[in-house]
């Protein structure tokens, strides 16, 4: 229990939904405030920047659907990452797993003669497998030799990045594109349909929403989900309960990588219709999905909301490039700040704030329970 001016902070390990949302909103507001200061230092009036974001993305009926274009890969990759984080596996490799998915899907679309109706399902299946495979090596190394997964998954990102750029400049460079570094365009059967008038490839969006529901069910209603949750709270308790960490982590990572792979399939089949330079295929979706998953605070359904929110950040970056001539990296400023404030505010989740001015303070009996020692749960979260 702590007193800060008239505010009293009482320890309360179980956070309510309202408090979670309030603290998250506060963190995001703080991030926007600091970003505004940075824009001001850069020479852009922050009020004008905020206005551009609000008016040119949210209030423009043509720009509004664009929010959902980056939201789709963020949703798919984000759900997978959330699952991995729940099992205490720090998968930072969604970017590479996503790119692995694009490679597999491109291979199916350009180099196999898969019959039309089977084309898209095959692309999604192989994309899933490729993403899962890309996540397999780091998880095996972690489980067998305790090699830090953060570093190995990161390295796998760079390997995937150079693999894609090698393919599109070398062996897979399209004969019909004359010197450009990309593959031939996919056949029509490998194109995902759009919602009319937008670039929203709705089958991928539906898939993402369905998988979010599926993962929510998996986590909360199945034995496997229970095992993941126990392992996430306390790996030791999981071991005593007879849960095989090898099996749980491996399965979680296969799903996590696979979902990122699906996100990659959506990008090439839905947006680009060819494989091209990795920096154009994925605008850092694999990294931003980490923040989307973190903001969802362990709830798979919440990723639907957070993915759309970061879709908004991407669109804001786009309009700021156009209207204010700011560089594309401006989205990274937002993302980094949001992530900082999110994790920085995490401890607030475990406190109930009460308005208690000093006058009333004295009437409170001295027998109130002392601040509890942090539980194991709080420890892994903080």
């Amino acid at each position, binding site marked *: 229990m702590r007193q800060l001016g008239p505010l009293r902070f009482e320890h309360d390990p179980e956070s309510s939904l309202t408090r979670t949302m309030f603290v998250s909103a506060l963190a995001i507001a703080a991030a926007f405030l600091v970003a505004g200061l*940075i824009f001001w230092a*850069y020479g852009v009036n922050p009020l004008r920047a905020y206005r551009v974001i609000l008016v040119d993305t949210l209030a423009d009926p043509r720009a509004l659907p664009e929010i959902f274009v980056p939201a789709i890969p963020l949703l798919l990759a984000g759900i997978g990452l959330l699952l991995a984080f729940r099992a205490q596996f*720090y998968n*930072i490799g969604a970017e590479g797993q996503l790119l692995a998915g694009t490679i597999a899907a491109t291979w199916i679309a350009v180099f196999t003669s898969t019959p039309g109706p089977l084309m898209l399902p095959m692309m999604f299946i192989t994309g899933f497998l490729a993403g899962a495979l890309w996540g397999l*090596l780091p998880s095996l*190394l972690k489980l067998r*030799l*305790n*090699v*830090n997964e*953060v*570093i*190995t998954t*990161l*390295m*796998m990102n*760079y*390997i995937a990045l*150079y*693999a894609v*750029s*090698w393919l599109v*400049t*070398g062996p897979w460079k399209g004969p019909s594109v004359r010197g450009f570094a990309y593959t031939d365009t996919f056949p029509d059967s490998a194109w995902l349909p759009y919602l009319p008038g937008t670039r929203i490839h709705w089958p991928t969006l539906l898939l993402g929403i369905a998988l979010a529901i599926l993962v929510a069910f998996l986590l909360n209603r199945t034995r496997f989900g229970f095992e993941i949750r126990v392992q996430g709270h306390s790996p030791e308790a999981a071991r005593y309960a007879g849960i095989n960490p090898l099996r749980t982590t491996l399965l979680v990572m296969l799903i996590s990588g696979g979902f990122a792979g699906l996100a990659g399939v959506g990008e090439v089949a839905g947006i680009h219709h060819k494989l091209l330079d990795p920096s154009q295929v994925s605008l850092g979706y694999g*990294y931003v999905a*980490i923040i989307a998953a*973190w903001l969802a605070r362990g709830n798979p359904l919440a990723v639907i909301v957070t993915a759309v929110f970061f879709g908004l950040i991407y669109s804001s970056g786009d309009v700021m490039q156009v209207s204010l001539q*700011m*560089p*594309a*990296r*401006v*989205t*990274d*400023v*937002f*993302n*980094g*700040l949001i*992530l*900082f404030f999110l*994790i*920085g505010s*995490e*401890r607030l989740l475990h406190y109930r704030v009460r308005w208690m001015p000093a006058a009333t303070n004295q009437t409170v009996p001295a027998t109130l329970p002392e601040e509890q*020692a*942090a539980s194991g749960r709080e*420890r892994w*979260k*903080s």
Partner: protein
Amino acid sequence: MEVITWLLESSLAGILVRGLAYGTPLLWGSLGEIYAERAGVVNLGVEGMMILGAFSGFATAHVTGNPVAGLCAAGLIGALAALLHAFFSITLRANQYVSGLALSMFGLGLSGLLGRGWEGIPLERPLPEVTILAPLGFALAVVLWVVLYHTRWGIILRTTGEAPAAADALGINVILVRYVAVVFGGLLAGIAGGFLSVAYRPSWTEGMTSGIGWIVVALAIFASWDPLKAIWTSLLFGVLFHLSFRLQTWIPAEPLQMMPFAFTIIVLTATARRSGRVRQAAPEALGLPYVRGER
């Protein structure tokens, strides 16, 4: 200077010298990371601190015309960036991995934003590549090794990383030691970044660290958190980076550029296989925030 030109002409020695040039930022960066991790704090923000150092170093060197001033600015900015990580991960006890990641994103974003008008300008008076920072780095590694294993400060630092509760009981200010170690790590990472833009490339390009900040984090593990070992591990990776450029005459560039990253995984695997010795070398409390009264 003639010696160096001669070295460059002879092939094997030439490769080593070039490896030294690329190994220098790896060395400076990994020495800093080793110290931060010895105090128990992982900092994945090296990529962000380096790129901020690279930009501020270049801008300062360009404006003042003095490359040494550039390096100083780079170190200062790196230290300030590290302070951000320290505040979030030590004071607010946020997850260290995620905080470092946030720092890397933020650093890449901020440097890309502020550095937009600075791209493509050559630096008139760059620092020589291998004659200053490489030997200084070797000397620094030796000094840091002596401090770590043979001084009171070293004991304080190691105790903080191994057993923070015991350190606290002994009257060591765990929070302060961790802050100092992380900020010192940022200082070195900033200088490493400044080396890239003031000596190695002498110019500024957005995202010019291109992933070596992550390799620095891996090198701290590969060197078993030992400053002396960091010398040859960074030299090895420096040679590897150099070869990945040199061999491009015969082999396509991309598979070669993949090489250092793939090799990092191989090296970490090999280190982990050495009968768990690395697990013993790792600071016991690495990655765990310190809360007094909690074990």
